[in-house]
């Protein structure tokens, strides 16, 4: 079993867990993910690794409460255990000294962008980071991101903090201002990554995105995570999760993310009926 050693509520619906998983921590690299099962009847969900501490033997995950599984996960307290915690899965980010890189994190995507930014900084890159959220309450890890960035732009959609802008727009402004960027990482909701990729396309800057699709096993067995990249079918779990954002078929990706929307709603409603205190943000 995998014990939760620390918990931090980053926003009303955004939670951080530090999980005891020494084997995973020993091998984890930026860009990889874990498959989490909350309890015995639970489903397998992929969560990107937000941080890891090899010495302490812990892995940090950050998630937003949206469906039943993440809400259930959100009820867990330090000392409690997770049923399964499998990883590190997927191919790590390709970290090297590219020169100037941009790390764009939107919403909960700030979590996985952090270890990538840190590794890029350690590799000697000039790191320009753009992080943003819908509003001030949903923003987290500003200081952490600042500590691994040479420049940091913070935005909110509603202007309640930092600059009022969508992150892809802030990204585009930087590129348009003439700053030479060698490579971009953009992580966040699919729609944000789509626009982050569109923003960089005219400038010809390779833009890596980390796709979060539906998965079952997470090891290449089922193909639930199929996406089209450059016209070819790829499995996010083993060929990714990072792909060239300019080559991803975004409309297909977003349609496939919604396959089980009805079932997700049903499960979430049932969960709230059975556990009124589990309503998002109320604990």
């Amino acid at each position, binding site marked *: 079993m995998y014990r939760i050693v620390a918990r931090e509520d980053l926003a009303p619906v955004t939670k951080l867990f530090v999980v005891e998983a020494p084997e995973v921590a020993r091998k984890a690299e930026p860009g990889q993910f874990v498959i989490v099962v909350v309890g015995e009847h639970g489903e397998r969900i992929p969560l990107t690794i937000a941080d890891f501490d090899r010495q302490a033997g812990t892995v940090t995950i950050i998630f937003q409460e949206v469906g039943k599984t993440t809400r259930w996960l959100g009820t867990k307290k330090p000392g409690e255990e997770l049923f399964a915690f*499998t990883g590190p899965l997927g191919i790590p980010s390709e970290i090297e000294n590219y020169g100037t890189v941009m790390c764009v994190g939107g919403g909960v995507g700030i979590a996985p962008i952090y270890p990538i930014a840190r590794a890029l900084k350690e590799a000697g890159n000039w790191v320009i980071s753009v992080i943003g959220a819908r509003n001030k309450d949903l923003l987290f890890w500003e200081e952490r991101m600042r500590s691994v960035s040479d420049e940091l732009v913070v935005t909110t959609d509603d202007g309640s903090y930092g600059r009022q802008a969508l992150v892809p727009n802030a990204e585009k402004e930087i590129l348009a201002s003439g700053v030479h960027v060698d490579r971009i990482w953009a992580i966040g909701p699919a729609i944000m990554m789509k626009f982050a990729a569109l923003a960089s396309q005219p400038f010809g800057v390779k833009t890596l995105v980390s796709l979060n699709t539906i998965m079952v096993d997470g090891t290449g067995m089922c193909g639930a995570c199929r996406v089209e990249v450059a016209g070819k079918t790829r499995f996010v779990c083993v060929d990714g999760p990072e792909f060239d954002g300019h080559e991803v078929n975004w409309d297909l990706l977003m349609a496939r993310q919604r396959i089980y929307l009805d079932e997700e709603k049903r499960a979430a409603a049932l969960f709230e009926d059975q556990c009124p205190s589990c309503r998002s943000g109320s604990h």
Partner: protein
Amino acid sequence: MAKEKTPRQEMPRQAPQVRRHNFDEVALGYSLETALAEAGRCLQCKKPSCVAGCPVQVRIPEFIGALRNQDFRAAADLLKDKNNLPAICGRVCPQETQCEAQCILGRKDKPVAIGRLERFVADWERRAGVQMPQMAPATGHRVAVIGAGPAGLTCAADLARFGHAVTLFEALHAPGGVLMYGIPEFRLPKDIVQAEVDYVLKLGVELRLNSVIGKLGSVNELLAGGFEAVFLGTGAGLPMFMDIPGENLIGVLSANEFLTRNNLMKAYRFPDYDTPIKIGRRVAVVGAGNVAMDASRTALRLGAEEVHIVYRRSRDEVPARLEEFENAQEEGVIFDFLTNPVAVLGDEKGYVRGLRLQRQELGEPDASGRRRPVPVQGSEYEMAVDMVIMALGTRPNPMVFSRATGLERTRHGTVVANELTGRTKLERVWAGGDIVTGAATVISAMGAGKRAAADIDAYLRDPGAGPWWVEPKPAE
């Protein structure tokens, strides 16, 4: 006057109209009376050919002899002397092409129902309480077995009985491999798999779940980290697709995904279990192997109104076991032979609305010995379906080879290994089951796990007994 011959005893099954609506086991097993009647048919041959037909050489006449004497405990012990997982084999082995195909009775009459008797004895033992077998004293040798499916479980159990300390690594959150994620409850109840796994663990095997070798550490690291031998039994888990237009539309799934959701994740009990599954009204399953039969029968049970199996060859080439083919037919699966999809058709929202198919005719035999399907020009037609399940076969998952060096693989992705010993090209690494043969049967994987365990044992006792790799003689 000649004694009247006892006919081969039928095993009761749930009626097709009943079972197509539930996930309970289809075959119900022999009663004591029928088991004894069937056991009485065995000729107790002095030189039993049935044993030679069994990949693990179960002591067939001996266990049937003990059963005849109603010494069930002795029957179970004799059975388990060679087979660690008899309740599973009694249910899913293709006996008709193995032991039963060799039975002398089969020349003039029907063969002894060896599989059903195996199942009867194994089920008796599970109810009566499983006894520990004889174990060799601890040797102090450490062996890593990767993959807790049929090959890995068998190999681990034998190694433990030989006295070695075995660590069994499993990538998923439950042991059993294809027995858990692939074969449905109605053919192989999961509590039976769990009971057989529990037996293997009782032998002292240490099970590590959620452990993806290749990601958590390579095979070479295991060898360097204190394991004297490594057995690879990771199977063939990668699904194949057809590479035709529309294959990523919503409603197209691999059989692996469909079955894993349903079997391992228990989606048929959603929302009691959290993993959802969608079911179409009209479902097409492409392929006609055992996995296709499992998928089509599962689709019926989930409530599909019409389920078609679409197969490019004819009825004579169906690779599934006859029993499973017949079960599917009885339950109402419709077989569309000599036709093959050329595209999946979608609606404006990206959902499947049909298949475009092309009729086939049979040409000359191909490498598999089966007649090759040849497309009939101008024969394309459409079929309205809202779900398509691809059951086209599987290949080995390359994950276990990540960061590993020295393991030679074929162009099919299988690992090169000596079939008699399981030895790979990398010293101290053995392999067996689907990772070597490509997708095959549970029992052939178990046989390979068993042979490898014997060779690992011999090697650990005397590593210098001979050269590591001996080029296998080419088949004659």
